[in-house]
């Protein structure tokens, strides 16, 4: 078992002792500080670091907390109002970039992006909605890709594998042309359980089960409950 070294860091003026090399997101949450995250999932190393919602200030620079390992003497700021503004700005940009028509989305009520907007008190995006055209992929046996909603978090491409350990999703193209695609042969062999896992892993409504949707009445979905502000 490797040896654990404790180091001291300062978070919003408070000194705390933490495990050296641990993820800053983990450390902050253990310290009771609510850092918003979207692409981040526990125990993924290296972290995806794609959404940037977990922006905090470290030694005077804004960084994504999930991509940072703690080291001795770090000066971390989380509570500054401009950081909350920055984090909400990132979420608003995601809403403006894709075509997020929540009233018509199968994932509405169980969508992590939507819940993040609720938690931040976001009423609209201050950025112009782009209304770009994105293609859909219905060719899968049981899964479909609704790319209007994809936030390119890379959860499906990097974290999802089939029962044999093979990846099923990948990115195609670059920059604003980047789109998620799936291996149709492997998709066809996915078990029911694995299909559901892929849908649940997607933080938005981009990966969906074909022929299924809107099957949970309003009032019973994750974000309908009073605890929806919690992770």
């Amino acid at each position, binding site marked *: 078992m490797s040896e654990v070294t404790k180091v001291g860091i300062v978070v919003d003026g408070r000194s705390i002792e933490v495990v050296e090399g641990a993820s800053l997101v983990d450390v902050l949450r253990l310290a009771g500080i609510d850092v918003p995250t979207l692409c981040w999932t526990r125990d993924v190393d290296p972290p995806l670091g794609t959404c940037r919602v977990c922006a905090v200030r470290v030694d005077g620079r804004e960084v994504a907390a999930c991509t940072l390992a703690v080291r001795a003497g770090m000066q971390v700021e989380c509570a500054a109002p401009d950081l909350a503004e920055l984090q909400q700005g990132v979420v608003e940009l995601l809403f403006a970039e894709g075509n997020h028509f*929540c009233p*018509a989305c199968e994932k509405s009520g169980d969508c992590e992006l939507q819940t993040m907007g*609720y938690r931040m008190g976001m009423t609209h995006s201050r950025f112009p909605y782009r209304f770009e*055209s994105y293609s859909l992929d219905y060719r899968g046996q049981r899964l479909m890709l609704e790319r209007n909603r994809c936030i390119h978090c890379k959860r499906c491409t990097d974290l999802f594998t089939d029962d044999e350990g093979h990846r099923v999703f990948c990115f195609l193209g670059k920059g604003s042309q980047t789109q998620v695609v799936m291996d149709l042969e492997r998709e066809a062999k996915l078990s029911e359980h694995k299909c559901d896992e892929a849908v649940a892993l997607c933080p938005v409504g981009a990966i969906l089960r074909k022929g299924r949707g809107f099957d949970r009445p309003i009032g019973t979905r994750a974000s309908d409950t009073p605890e929806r502000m919690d992770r």
Partner: protein
Amino acid sequence: MTQKKVIATTSLAGCFGCHMSLLDIDLRLLDLVEVVAFDRSPLTDIKTFTRRADIGLIEGGVCNDENVHVLRLFREHCDILVSMGACAIMGGLPALRNEIPLSECLEEAYLRVPTSAGGSRIIPHHPDLPKILDRVYPCHEIVKIDYFLPGCPPSAELIWRAVTGLLFGGADPIPRELIRYD
């Protein structure tokens, strides 16, 4: 008796669902009409402003030149302007056409549609008809909007809290726990 506050409402490219949700405040409507008067609104059928409004509630996005005209009139005549519902805020379901060229939308609606009158080859273009815009715009991209009530529709509770809070004061007129996007 103090003078009643004035509310104006309109539905641009909307479905009137937000207005229905406003009516869903049920018996509180009776309390509301004690202290406010509705001016220009589909609820009163008053077509033009007869006085300045304290608050204007806009349902629907902006899909044609008449919507632009009405929205600008509301901005001119209302102290506080509120985008009410998903369509006013981001175009909503009518904005599903935004990624399709306008000519294609019109051809589909008037020329290729199975119910077009036998052999009809006309896209309506009478000067009295509003001109359809290239896409559906959120209201705040056309005029300054002061507050936003998300939802499809926003709940009656949110509309009640916002309208009474903005008109008569009170903490947090748009409480976070009432925000929904669907």
